[in-house]
């Protein structure tokens, strides 16, 4: 061996047992769906993993009725401390079965096992553990003296963090005394169905959590069901708009966590090596399938060349390939559809005059793949500087002064997240103040924690998930309704 090549180190697939087909999880049982079943594939190989039921309006209705029954008869009246204990149980079960969840997530989603193992699954467990503790302390949450649950929550989640988004939705809903009908994303239903099994192992009362798989129509049925009291959605701004329209005029409470086009601002006094790591982590984490991805690099002009050179050198060390290989940094694009969008926007970027750079990297023959990509010479008017690509594509823009950095960072209809890199504390705080974004990472990026409220400004949505703030989305009381 001339150089240090890492031999393949695949995580064993044998830990998961994928059934040939899955039903809907309604009222504590797996039942058949009335729709034509759909196939879920491994995006790294295009292999069909399983056939999954598709819920129709009638199926959703059954799920909502089960959730309503569970809310009025069991979950609502239950001692809050006991609700908390169920959530603690779920947290522990997720930890016990962590490796199984991680492998399944990587198979169904295409994300590297390193991330599903070290980020998605542990954070999902942490969300349940955190919210479990809130269940009997809600009166102390600063949301009024007698906060009460809303009832049945209809939740629709995306494919980029299937289990983690499930946890972000279900944990606070349950802790606050609501019951849930959740629709996982069409392309990534498997960990939600494994989660249903966890609910059974936890002896969670039937109907408290219902999982109805399917595509957009199923999601619409959940959102529009008349007996749903609360709608929570994470996904694209476009779908978010249509949900907000659908919910208009009802008494349903709505929270939306939508798209983003985050600026990652690098000042000339930044800790350059960590900034480069942060840029990489910001845009290539989870193949860039992250709503808060740092997809717009705003670098101070006087260090542009140096930063780009360092960034390209670093990107050259990224390992793209088999998601189950423990050394993989960038896995597969989640679907053919998403790959087509990434390709299209990248081509537009080039056509508009930006310069595309990609490292030499071999991509597998089968499956959906896109190499890490950096566009320089990007102008604020280019589509790649404005549209959410939702892939491993970074657009680089420059600025000269802090004012210009802020103006360019805020020059977007989104407002989910932003990054600042500087060794000067006062500058960081001043810039953080002026950025119109819900999460500002200073000298770090893409950090998440159940105690830390997450959510957007502007067209990135409204409502927060996590922390004391996240509870408000699922409670009514003197001050929250």
């Amino acid at each position: 061996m001339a150089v240090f090549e890492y031999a393949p180190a695949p995580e064993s697939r044998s830990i998961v047992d994928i059934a040939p087909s899955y039903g809907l999880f309604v009222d504590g049982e797996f039942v058949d769906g009335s729709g034509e079943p759909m196939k879920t594939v491994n995006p790294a190989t295009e292999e069909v993993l399983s056939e999954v039921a598709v819920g129709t309006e009638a199926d959703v209705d059954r799920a909502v009725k089960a959730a309503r029954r569970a809310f009025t008869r069991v979950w609502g009246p239950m001692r809050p401390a006991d609700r908390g204990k169920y959530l603690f149980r779920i947290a522990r079960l997720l930890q016990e079965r962590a490796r199984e969840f991680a492998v399944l997530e990587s198979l169904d989603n295409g994300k590297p096992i390193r991330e599903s193992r070290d980020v998605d699954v542990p954070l999902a467990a942490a969300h349940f553990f955190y919210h479990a503790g809130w269940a009997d302390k809600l009166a102390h949450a600063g949301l009024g003296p007698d906060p009460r649950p809303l009832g049945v929550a209809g939740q629709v989640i995306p494919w980029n963090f299937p289990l983690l988004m499930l946890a972000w939705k279900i944990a606070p809903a349950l802790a606050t005394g609501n019951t849930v009908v959740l629709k996982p994303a069409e392309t990534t239903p498997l960990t939600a169905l494994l989660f249903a099994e966890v609910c059974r192992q936890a002896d969670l009362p039937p109907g408290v959590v219902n999982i109805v798989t399917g595509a957009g129509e199923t999601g619409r049925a959940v959102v529009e069901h008349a007996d749903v009291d609360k709608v929570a959605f994470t996904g694209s701004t476009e779908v978010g708009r249509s949900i907000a329209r659908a919910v208009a005029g009802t008494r349903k409470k709505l929270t939306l966590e939508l798209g983003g086009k985050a600026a990652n601002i690098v000042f000339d006094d930044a800790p350059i090596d960590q900034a480069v790591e942060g840029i990489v982590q910001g845009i290539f984490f989870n193949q860039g399938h992250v709503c808060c991805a740092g997809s717009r690099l705003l670098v101070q002009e006087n260090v542009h060349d140096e930063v780009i050179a360092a960034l390209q050198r670093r990107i050259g060390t990224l390992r793209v390939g088999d998601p189950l290989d423990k050394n993989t940094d960038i896995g597969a694009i989640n679907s053919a559809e998403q790959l087509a969008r990434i390709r299209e926007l990248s081509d537009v970027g080039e056509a508009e005059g930006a310069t595309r750079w990609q490292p030499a990297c071999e991509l597998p023959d089968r499956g959906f793949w896109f190499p890490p990509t950096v566009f320089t010479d990007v102008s604020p008017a280019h589509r790649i500087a404005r549209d959410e690509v939702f892939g491993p594509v970074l657009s680089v823009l420059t600025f000269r002064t802090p004012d210009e950095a802020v103006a360019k960072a805020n020059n977007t209809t989104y407002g989910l997240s932003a990054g600042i890199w500087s060794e000067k504390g006062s500058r960081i705080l001043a810039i953080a103040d002026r950025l119109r974004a819900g999460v500002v990472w200073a000298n770090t990026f893409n950090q998440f924690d159940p105690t830390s409220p997450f959510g957007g400004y502007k067209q990135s949505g409204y409502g927060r998930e996590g922390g004391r703030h996240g509870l408000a989305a699922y409670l009514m009381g003197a001050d929250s309704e």
Partner: protein
Amino acid sequence: MISNERLTVRKTYKLYLGGAFPRSESGRTYEVTDARGAFLANAARASRKDARDAVVAARAAFGKWSAATAYNRGQVLYRVAEVMEGRHAQFCEEVAAGEGLSTGRARAAVDAAIDRWVWYAGWTDKLAAVLGSANPVAGPYFDFSLPEPTGVVAVLAPQRSSLLGLVSVLAPVVASGNTAVVVTSHERPLPAVTLGEVLATSDVPGGVVNLLTGDAAELGPWLAEHDDVDAIDLTGAPPERAMEFEREAAGSIKRVLRPPAGGEPDWTADPGLTRMRTFLETKTVWHPKGF
């Protein structure tokens, strides 16, 4: 008929927009009557272009107002109460006439409206402490969350309570640093115009509050659809149009405060924090802790 009594100088009721008192660009006015139908005045009937100009003014004012210290905003709001107090009698007259209230009840409404400014003046520098948090994340980071104003808020003010209701929806918007474009009560707009005169003389920067007299049914859709409006309060929307406005607001993912169930609420009740919360964002900031 000749009288020795002095002939009063009547007021021209105009819009309050960007700190000035223009007529509607459309030149339109409409007749405002008292509760018994007697003529009171001609009010400016704001047009969609006035609404557009008001949004521009509100956006322009947002940067400074939202960046002002909470202490400063508190003093400005308290100043509003002070100046209102000096116009107490005028407000009582206008409220009594417009709402058809007895002198005593009109006085109570004006008292409550002034006190409401005082209440919100005291909130400006408490919000961050009450609504913010230091988040104990599982890692070497300092992580905190603070409330920040949403931006430009369109307010369809209550139709019935022309002053207390108006202040009750306006003060929570501006207390936290938002700027407001308000469509006043259609039939009872006069106290709002007088309030504009108070605001203009109480250190409230021009553009922070813009008061449009006119018809919420006409202006509502323009504001609901406006991409540069961040949030909309539908309290005074015509009940049969509220759903439509909410749908239009979805186009730019506006924060929407729906009209209260069961019609206009009792404005004398404890306001709570809901109105302020609705027009606040939460910003979470992370920073590593290391040597």
